[in-house]
């Protein structure tokens, strides 16, 4: 007969490896388990090919490391145009210029800007916005760096929502570990926008060369001013500037 003392204390049984592997948030090199996730096309063919779900993964944290402002709108505008719902800009590094967004075709009614300079406010807002399942959250890390735990909170919140959750961090953050599902480094190179994917959950990184995305044609030099500049830089300091025109007065002494 069992008596009270024989009842084992309620301690959770130690998790077995199999159980742990069943967890959705466990990262295993190559695994097809994650491929069913929803994604939204990046708008760039080569980049889509490099990404596991052929697009930006939804409801997980995407981390973009870059030095200051480096073509982030070039990178995400096609995806934002493809996603419905609100786009929240949390803590943007400068004022978004409405004219450029109207030109790009993004509905300004869909865009909300929030400034949260303090770290705790930033995290609270990020969590609130991601959970609300709005179309996309684009957040720029505040001056005070985020710790791993805080990034984990952001990742969990992003997993609860259904939209895009993108966190921009300085280039130096590349060296730190982060729970984000997708991490990439972007910079503007002479040939275009260079994207290096250096972490992708469920996919062992084999990419050796960065993907280069073309920049808009309007940014290309329209007038050969820069060529002139470079030429003039090569010229000696004491060289006399070439006379462009002669002015001949009509009256008076020459």
């Amino acid at each position, binding site marked *: 007969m069992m008596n009270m003392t024989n009842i084992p204390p309620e301690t959770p049984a130690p998790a077995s490896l199999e159980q742990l592997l069943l967890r959705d948030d466990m990262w295993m090199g190559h695994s097809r388990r994650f491929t069913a996730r929803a994604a939204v096309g990046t708008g760039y063919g080569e980049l889509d090919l490099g990404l596991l779900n052929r697009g930006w993964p939804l409801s997980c944290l995407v981390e973009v490391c870059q*030095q*200051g*402002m*480096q*073509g*982030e*709108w*070039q990178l995400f505008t096609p995806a934002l145009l493809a996603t*419905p*719902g*609100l786009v929240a800009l949390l803590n*943007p*590094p*400068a*004022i*978004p*210029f*409405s*004219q*450029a*967004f*109207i*030109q790009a075709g993004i*509905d*300004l*009614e*869909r*865009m*909300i*800007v*929030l*400034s*949260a300079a303090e770290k705790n*406010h930033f995290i*609270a*807002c990020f969590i*609130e*916005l991601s*959970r*609300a399942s*709005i*179309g996309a959250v684009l957040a720029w890390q505040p001056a005070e760096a985020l710790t791993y735990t805080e990034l984990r909170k952001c990742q969990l919140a992003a997993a609860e929502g259904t939209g895009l959750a993108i966190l921009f961090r300085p280039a130096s953050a590349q060296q730190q570990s982060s729970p984000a599902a997708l991490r990439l480094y972007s*910079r*503007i*190179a*002479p040939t275009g926008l260079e994207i290096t994917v250096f972490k992708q959950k469920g996919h062992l990184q084999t990419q050796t060369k960065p993907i280069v995305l073309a*920049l808009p044609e*309007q*940014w*290309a*030099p*329209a*007038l050969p*001013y*820069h060529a002139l*500049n*470079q030429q003039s*830089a090569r010229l000696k300091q004491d060289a006399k500037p070439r006379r462009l025109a002669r002015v001949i007065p009509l009256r008076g002494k020459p």
Partner: protein
Amino acid sequence: MNAPGSRLWLAIRFSDLALTALKPDGPTTKPIVVIEKKRVIFANAMAAAAGVTVTMDTTTAQLLSGCEIVERDAVKEQSALHQLSEQLYQFSPYIDRYYSDGLVQSGLLLELSSCLALFGGLASLSKKIFAHLAATPYGFEYGLAHSAQAAWYLSFADYDIVGDEVVGNKAKPLFIERLNKLSIDVLIDYPRAVEALAKTGFKTLGDLALQINGKSISSFRKRLGQDFTDLLCDIYAIDQNLLQNSLFEKPRDIYRPDEWFEQEIQFEYPVTIVEQLEPAIENLLQQLSDYLRKRQQQCQYIEWCIADIYRKKEWLKVNSDEPQSHWQLLYDLTLIQFDNRELPFEVDTIKLICHHSMPLQRRSQLLDFDQNRRRKSSLQDFTITIAKLKARLGDSAVYKLGYRDSRVPEFTNVMLALAEKCNQELPEVHLNSLRPTWLLSKPELIEARRNRLYWHGYLSTLVGPERIIGDWWQEPVARDYFLAKRQDHLPVWIFFNLYDKQWYVHGVFA
């Protein structure tokens, strides 16, 4: 007791309301007059003794008595009346206001017939009412009759309420007898009728009654108009419907006293951390939500008051963007407010107050011609999140962008509240020009290093110039904008200011 259906109205006329509403401190020893449109409308006893009369002009009154002159404040009078109604609500649920234009006097009309039993008869009820009014600074006259108008006019005559002899079947003839003795001058609100009647030889209301009984009321209707006839019918309780007696009496309006929500919870132990307040906050908000639901109302603003055992108090205000009738959002907003501060003392009681509520707006759907329902609904679903974010960051930190017509780039970018609609009509001139995605809040000066432009790296111009000139009527702007590339290939938007001959960075293409 009184027969069913017979009404008993008590009119309380506040003869000095114009003054006491302005100066409720009680009688002064100085002559004071209240004026409106440069005419005296009320003179206190001192001023009246000096010869000031109503309708006298201000200068004459001042010359006569050297009195203090105050301008009438109708709003204060109304609020005084409101206060009095609130107090008298304990005696009768039927309270009306009466305002006499001719006399510039107001009063309250109470219907008492249904309250007599509760207060033990008319004598004891009226004693209680008068004792209550005597405690207020307002002087008053009263009149008792079978109809509201008649009671008002009887307040000009001086009849004491002695016993219950004015209640019951013999009451109405008694009131009519008293009315008959009144001069027609009391009908001051109908000056044309009074003048016409005086010319025809009518002196008292009794003369009118004789005429009505002898002939019919229709002669009055023909000469003096429908309004005046209605008044007479009301005073003398004449049924104007010739074909059939009315089945029902005119309904009385039930007075609605001010209502607000105020509840508090006292803790059994001093509370020092916010988490321990949470169950109490939730409970109080549920009560509020219950209160609002039962009244079909919603509220937008609540106040919390926390107090310790020494009666130290601290107030916390919670505002929501949209009216709420459910407690969840208010709960979240309250917690955000509490999160942002520490409890200043050991909390003993917490009180929730909601003074103002509004009727639930009817849910209506706008016709959607331009197919923007989807966008609207997404913003609607997002309301709660926005409210929480605003509570945390402040209203100004959450905004939308819009375009405003201007030539100067920084003036075209406007920050709007979320509820506002933004203009997205971009004129041709801006639509086809290069515009950066980021705009610096203030243009940054570019250094000249080794004869080259330098801003965190050497710059070289690629596209341009685009000349922008504008705002000549204020601070004139003339700039040549270029797309430039920095050493690290970052495209930036720079301009040469034609006024101060300096280069600036204004935006970044990203």
